[in-house]
């Protein structure tokens, strides 16, 4: 054989895993404790930022499914978010009191939230086939067109959207228990921001789990193959139409959910059509680039850096105001931050923050190896991308029919 075999592959691969796992676990526990502290003592100002980040996290995850994992350039996430948002206002909004009020069916939360995802997914299923014919830049521009067409429609369909004036969105509630004005649970009185935070953690967690599972199974492998080489994927039996439409459906579903949660959040409950614009769509693209393309943690970290960080800086006046009191406006500061981050990350760390973290972990492992002596320092490490490579190894080989 032409390649030299590592002397002790089993021992060499076992060691870094044992060292690496507690570190990662420590990071997770630390993060959870931090979140818990903010949850308990952060007050409304911190929780608002956190809630905003979590909603944006669902959106970034949605975009990562389509662009990061499947390689379909999309500048049109706000189109699908808008569809989700207006499904929410239509299904969950108040019934019209006067003629001219936008239509609302006042259906419960458990109906309008999933329905928002499904309607957006339907729109995704209709747009998806376009991606079969149009690639790269062309698809990017078509999705950009969707944003403008969407905004036009949202402004025109006043009976659903309220037109330029916007309309009130429903707040989530389960039975008579409302997230906007929560009754005590087992005698514990939580604020609206706190219960909304719990809801968002649950939804973002479930979405991440779902996407993670897709990406490690058959459909997700097909998505990633389509991203890397379409013709090669098709030769291996991947139906390109099925994969692209599938990615559009999954991504749009999540975008619809994100749009719904965005408007249903008590602080944003009066959406106007203007918010579903290209600038917001680009912010989501910035989030996945800064956080990490084709990575679930990357989506969440990206949302924190692009959506959460600027609001935190703004809210706590961490930016010095200029003498004339004219300081940079929030939106501009935000844009400045993510504009610079896009360019810096693309130039210097294309794998995003998650790539940086992986690099630091690898460095830590190498230092550990060196400390343990030269014995393992030269042995190849298993790749962190597939730490569970030996799961299923004990199942008897069996042919799939």
């Amino acid at each position, binding site marked *: 054989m032409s390649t030299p075999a590592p002397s002790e592959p089993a021992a060499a691969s076992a060691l870094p895993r044992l060292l690496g796992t507690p570190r990662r676990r420590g990071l997770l526990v630390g993060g959870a404790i931090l979140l818990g502290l903010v949850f308990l003592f952060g007050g409304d100002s911190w929780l608002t930022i956190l809630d905003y980040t979590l909603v944006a996290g669902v959106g970034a995850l949605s975009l990562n499914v389509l662009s990061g994992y499947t390689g379909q*350039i999309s500048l049109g996430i706000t189109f699908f978010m808008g569809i989700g948002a207006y499904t929410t206002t239509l299904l969950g909004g108040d019934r019209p009191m006067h003629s001219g009020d936008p239509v609302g069916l006042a259906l419960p939360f458990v109906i309008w939230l999933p329905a928002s995802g499904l309607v957006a997914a339907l729109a995704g299923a209709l747009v998806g086939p376009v991606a079969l*014919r149009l690639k790269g830049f*062309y698809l990017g521009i*078509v999705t950009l*067109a969707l944003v403008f067409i969407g905004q036009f429609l949202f402004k025109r369909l006043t009976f659903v959207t309220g037109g330029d004036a916007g309309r009130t969105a429903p707040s989530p509630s389960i039975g008579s228990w409302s997230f906007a004005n929560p009754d005590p649970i087992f005698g514990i009185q939580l604020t609206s921001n706190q219960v909304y935070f719990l809801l968002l953690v649950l939804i973002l967690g479930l979405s991440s789990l779902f996407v993670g599972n897709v990406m490690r199974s058959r459909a997700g492998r097909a998505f990633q193959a389509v991203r890397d080489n379409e013709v090669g994927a098709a030769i291996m039996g991947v139906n390109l139409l099925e994969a692209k439409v599938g990615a559009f459906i999954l991504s749009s579903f999540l975008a619809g959910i994100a749009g719904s949660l965005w408007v249903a959040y008590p602080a944003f409950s009066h959406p106007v059509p203007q918010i579903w614009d290209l600038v917001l769509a680009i912010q989501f693209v*910035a989030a996945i680039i800064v956080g990490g393309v084709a990575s679930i943690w990357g989506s969440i970290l990206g949302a924190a850096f692009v959506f959460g960080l600027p609001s935190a800086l703004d809210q706590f006046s961490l930016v010095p105001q200029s003498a004339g009191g004219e300081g940079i406006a929030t939106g501009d500061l935000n*844009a400045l931050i993510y504009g610079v981050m896009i360019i810096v990350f693309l130039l210097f760390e294309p794998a995003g923050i998650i790539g940086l973290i992986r690099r630091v972990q690898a460095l830590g492992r190498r230092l550990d190896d060196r400390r343990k002596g030269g014995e393992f320092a030269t042995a190849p490490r298993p790749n962190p991308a597939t730490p569970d490579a030996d799961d299923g190894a004990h199942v008897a080989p069996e042919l799939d029919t």
Partner: protein
Amino acid sequence: MADFITYSFIGLAIGCIYALIALGFAIIYKASEVINFAQGELLLVGAYVASYAMYTWRLAFPLALLVAIAVTVAIGLLFERFALRRMIGRPVFSIVMITIGLDVLLRTGVTVRLGATQFLNAATPFGSVSQVRLGGVVFNDIDITIIAATLVCCAALFLFFNRTRYGLAMRATALDQEAALAVGIDVRTVYAMAWGLAGAVAAIGGVLLAARQGSGGFDVGLGQSALLAFPAIILGGLDSIPGAVVGGVLIGLTYGYASGYELRVSWLGAGFETVAPYLVMLVVLLVRPYGLFGSRKVERV
């Protein structure tokens, strides 16, 4: 009928601006297969600098225009040298995004200087807009200027690409990069030149587009309205320079008719002119995925 001619003329003038913007895209794409999503904001910067030079520094219009061109050319060259050149060989998605990063920075830069809702007087060679009447048809002098300026720019570019050494080098590189390298063309110079040219065209387009906004002046939304050049380049095909001009005029006419007639078709309503070009683009793309004049690429296994 008079209305139709007026709308056609307005459409033609707007189309000429889109053609100029689209030329900026096509020049860069042809040389380096990159779509510059920041082209719209380069227009905004051009218009802003020209206006600033004319009304704050009190420069004459031609000088103000030159200053604007110098600034956008410099931005183009710097961005190419320090950002894009490091991105060669990276996925399309990353390249799109880095130009979007520039787009965000340029827009924010102008917004911070100008304020998000502030309107600025556009730099124009005229004191005030005057009109020419022929029969029942009205022509604005700015529209006539736009059409003339576009013709001059197109002619200059045509001569550049066909008669000068650098122009021929750019065309050779677009046709076959390896062959161009083999005959001693410095491809890096070609890329830089493409960005410089695109910057210059953007400044001219920006000044014209701002001047066309009328007496109210222009604001930071100018960059986004320049995005209507996207349908133009897509219609024309990304890599075709004549296609960019034809696409621009087609989109301008669509815009002109849509804004002229939309009030008569009540269910369409105001603002339809901003989406009509995109709708036309979608229809064309579904029939011809590589535009009207674009060439199809064969993917390799």
